């Protein structure tokens, strides 16, 4: 029977002994310089590689799992590059907020390393990003988010909320692939993205904790132009064929209490705005 505790249950010393993460980088896993800088700053976890080795012959992850993990890796490249660039930009992030974005960047860099290690030679390389949202034109609607803190925070929220929906949208594919430990690990990333999303949403609202800047998503509301696709369908009030309002709750509560999924194609359409093809 598979362990249900995921990778967090592994003895860190054992993990450290099994593989020195810096080997991963030296082997030339292609990544952007900023991602590489972010990775080099931390000890790279290779617990996922241990997992993969454990469950399969090297390089024998089921194709469906490879596809999902490469999809996730692409999103993590986007997030980690975004935060590493934001932290590198001088005078962008308010001093009081720096620990928040440093902590988020730490996790996103961790996720990149974890997924790269799990995928080994099957890992995709990082795309080139266009954070103006111009699909490579550099002249998209978000301009230069590294010169405008409000835009940086807005994109951060959109990326985190999209990430939550993206991972949630892939759990059934991982379930079908019958690799419980990978599913558990994906869930463990998923809830971290949700912790991030809640914090950035609240930070954007100066911690007044009122809609649309609560930690949770009210209906399909967004105060960020150009992000309606990220929130489409979040106003759903029917779960497992039960009309939740019939239980005596408002549509607002019903929508907030349940997050929704996004398909891989919907997520790629959103992320595609920020990728230079």
């Amino acid at each position, binding site marked *: 029977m598979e362990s249900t505790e995921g990778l967090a249950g592994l003895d860190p010393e054992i993990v450290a002994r099994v593989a020195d993460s810096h080997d991963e980088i030296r082997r030339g896993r292609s990544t952007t310089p900023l991602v590489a800088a972010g990775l080099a700053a931390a000890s790279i976890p290779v617990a996922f590689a241990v997992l993969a080795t454990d469950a399969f012959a090297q390089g024998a992850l089921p194709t469906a799992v490879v596809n999902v993990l490469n999809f996730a890796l692409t999103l993590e490249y986007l997030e980690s590059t975004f935060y590493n660039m934001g932290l590198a930009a001088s005078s962008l992030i308010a001093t009081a907020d720096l620990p928040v974005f440093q902590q*988020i960047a730490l996790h996103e860099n961790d996720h990149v390393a974890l997924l790269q290690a799990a995928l080994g030679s099957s890992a995709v390389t990082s795309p080139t990003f266009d954070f103006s949202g111009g699909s490579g034109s550099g002249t998209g609607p978000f301009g230069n988010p590294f010169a405008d803190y409000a835009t940086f925070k807005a994109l951060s929220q959109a990326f985190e909320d999209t990430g939550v929906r993206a991972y949630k949208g892939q759990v*059934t594919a991982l379930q079908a692939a019958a690799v419980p430990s990978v599913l558990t*690990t994906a869930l463990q990333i998923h809830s971290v993205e949700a912790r991030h999303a809640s914090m950035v949403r609240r930070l954007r609202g100066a911690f007044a904790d009122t809609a649309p800047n609560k930690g949770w998503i009210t209906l399909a509301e967004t105060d960020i132009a150009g992000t309606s696709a990220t929130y489409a369908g979040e106003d759903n009030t029917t779960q*497992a064929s039960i009309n939740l309002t019939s239980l*005596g709750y408002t549509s607002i509560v*019903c929508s907030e209490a349940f997050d929704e999924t996004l398909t891989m194609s919907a997520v790629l359409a959103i992320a595609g705005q920020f990728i230079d093809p």
Partner: protein
Amino acid sequence: MSGPSGLDGMERLLPPTARRTFLKQLGLGGAALMLPTMLVEACGSSSTTGPAGGLYTLDFSSDTGILNYAYALEQLEAAFYTQVIASPYSGIATNEMNILGDVKQHETLHRDFFKAALGSSAIGTLSFNFSSVDFTSRTSVLATAAALEDTGVAAYNGAGAHIVSPDYLVLAGKIVSVEARHASAIRDLINHEAAATGFAGNDVVNSTTGLDNAQPPSVILPIAGTYITTTITVKNGF
């Protein structure tokens, strides 16, 4: 079914200080903290529900058992926040009331949803004892809330891979991310001034892997048992 011992033994097994430590240590991966005596493999019954009078069985061999496990945890959260909102600690800030009021609504909805979804397969209403919580104390209330939310996240994360139905797995995913949003906000209320990283602190998200906790019922139920006075018997647990 033969003499199940349940979570009500928790009060005897752990003195108050140990219980507090226990909650804190959830974030450290509590395998060593398991209390095997709490969990009895009941035999002779495949029922997920128990007889009237405060005895319920969670049979983890099916999704029904896992959903009832979630229902039990949501009952606990709902009962806690209902009491918090009924008598808020003095000096509660406006944004704290906004957060805790919303969370109460979300958790009671989760509870009512599971009851409706499980229908006749639902376990009954659990009883709780929150005497270890000082509801007049901001510190006590927020610490308990954060522990409950973190526990909920770890519970759903740990149960996901055991769910058979794709629909129920997605459902668990829809709820767990909301629990994580709650955990983030409440942890931030506690820690924001002193440590702005508390929303996803290194005590709950592994700083090397970037992973949240995932724990099996054998770890979660003894923690929940700090407050649940109804006897719960576990069958086919993990």
